[in-house]
C-alpha cells in the first residue's frame, strides 16, 4: 500500500506543499496537518454539515472530500473567510441574534450562509430555512440562525439599493 501522496494547494490564500495518506479527508488534513481547527467533524458521513468548507469557490462536505482531491485547488476555511472580513456582517448578526451557544456547528453554518447570501441575495425566509437545513445545530433551535441570515440578506439588499 502506498504511503504518502504529494499535494499542492492554496489554503486561505497561502500555498502549501504536503504529503498525505490517500485516505485522509480534507478536514482531517486541515485540522491535523495545517492546524486549522475551525472546521469541525460531527457525523463524518455528510449529513451534519459541521465540516463545511469551500473548495474551488464552492461549499463542500469536507469529510466527504479526500485531501488528495484538493490537489491543485483552492480551499477557504472559516479562518480564511473570517480574516478577510467577507463574513463580518454574518458574524456580527450571529452574535447579535444569539445564533450560537456551544459553537460547534457555527463554522459550518457560516460557510453555508456565506454561499447563500452570495448566490441567493433575494432568498426569502423559507428558502433560507431550506438551504441551512443541511447544517445541524443541537443548541439553538435554528430560528436565531435563520434570523441572523435574514438580517444579513436585508442589510446587503439595503446596502446595494
Amino acid at each position, binding site marked *: 500500500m502506498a504511503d504518502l501522496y504529494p499535494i499542492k494547494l492554496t489554503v486561505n490564500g497561502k500555498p502549501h506543499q504536503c504529503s498525505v495518506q*490517500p485516505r485522509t479527508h480534507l478536514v482531517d488534513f486541515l485540522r491535523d496537518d495545517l492546524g486549522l481547527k475551525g472546521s469541525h467533524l460531527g457525523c463524518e458521513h455528510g449529513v451534519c454539515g459541521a465540516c463545511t468548507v469551500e473548495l474551488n469557490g464552492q461549499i463542500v462536505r469536507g469529510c466527504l*472530500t479526500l485531501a488528495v482531491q484538493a490537489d491543485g485547488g483552492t480551499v477557504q476555511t472559516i479562518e480564511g473567510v473570517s480574516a478577510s472580513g467577507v463574513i463580518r456582517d454574518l458574524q456580527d448578526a450571529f452574535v447579535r441574534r444569539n445564533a450560537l451557544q456551544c459553537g460547534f456547528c457555527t463554522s459550518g453554518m457560516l460557510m453555508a450562509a456565506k454561499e447563500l447570501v452570495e448566490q441567493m441575495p433575494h432568498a426569502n425566509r423559507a428558502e433560507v430555512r*431550506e438551504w441551512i*437545513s443541511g447544517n445541524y445545530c443541537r443548541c439553538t433551535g435554528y430560528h436565531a440562525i435563520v434570523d441572523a441570515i435574514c438580517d444579513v440578506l436585508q442589510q446587503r439588499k439595503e446596502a446595494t439599493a
Partner: protein
Amino acid sequence: MKAAAFDYVKPASIDQVIALLQEHGDDARLLAGGQTLMATLNMRLSEPQLVVDITGIESLRGISVQGPVLRIGALATHTDIEFSPLVARHAPLLKAAAPHIAHRAIRNSGTFGGSIAYADPAAEWPTCLLALGGTVVARGPKGERRIAADDFFTGLYSTALQPDELLTACEIPLAGADHWFGFSELARRHGDYAIVGMAATARREGDALHGLRIVLLGVDATPVRARQTETLLEARALDMATVTQAVASLRSEIDPLPDLTNTPDTKRHLAGVLLHRMLPTAATATTATA
C-alpha cells in the same frame, strides 16, 4: 470514523480507467463526486485496495446538445445541472428535480453519472432518466455501448453496467415544444430520502397527454414505471373523472415495499396523492413542480 487505508490513482484517460477495472476488479472503487463512496468508506462499510479518481478526465465533463439529444457528462454535478441553461431548455424535468437532492454542499460535489451508476431507488436522477426515456452511454474493453434507461436499472443498487465498464455520459431526447413534465417528492424533512416521489413526462396535445412516462421513486428496489396507468391516460382528456381513475389505477398497479417509518399502504396512498396533484397541471400549463 476514518476510512481504512487504500492506494489512490487519478488516471488521465478512460482507457486507463478500464484497464484498472480489469486489473483490480472488485478491489477497486471509482471515485467521482464521492458523496456516496466517501460516506461508505468513512463508515468502513467497504475497504477497497484502490480508489480510482476519475475526476481528472475532461471528456467526462460537460453538458451539451449533440444532434437530437442533450448529453450530460458523467461528471456533471447536481449543481451544474441545476443551473445549466441547456438543461433548463431541453430537459427542464432535471432542473425541477435538482433542488430536491440533499443540500447545496452535496450538490456541488455529487455527479449525475455517480447517481445513475449507484441506482438508489429513492434517488432523483435514476427516476428522472427513466421518465425522460434517456440512454446511458458506457465504455468498456469492447468499446462504447448505449443502454436504454428502461433496460438499465436491474435490481437493488444493480445496473446493466459490467464490472469493467465506465458510465461516461447520459443522453436525453431534447424536449419538444409540446413537452409536459412533472416532478414531486414527499420527504419528512428537506434533503431526507424521499418517502415517495414521482417524475412524469409526456407530449401535450390539446388537453390530453400522449406517450406518458410516469415513474415512481422510493417504492421498490428500482425506479418503477406505472405502465398500466400510462396506458389508461394515453390520449384521454384530463377531466376529474379521468384523474380519479388514474389515481385508482396507480394505487392498484404498484406493490410498494415498506421502509422503517412508512408502510406499503402509506406509500401507495402517497403515490396516488402525487399523481392527483400532478395531472391537473397538464390541462392548464406546461409544467408541474412541487
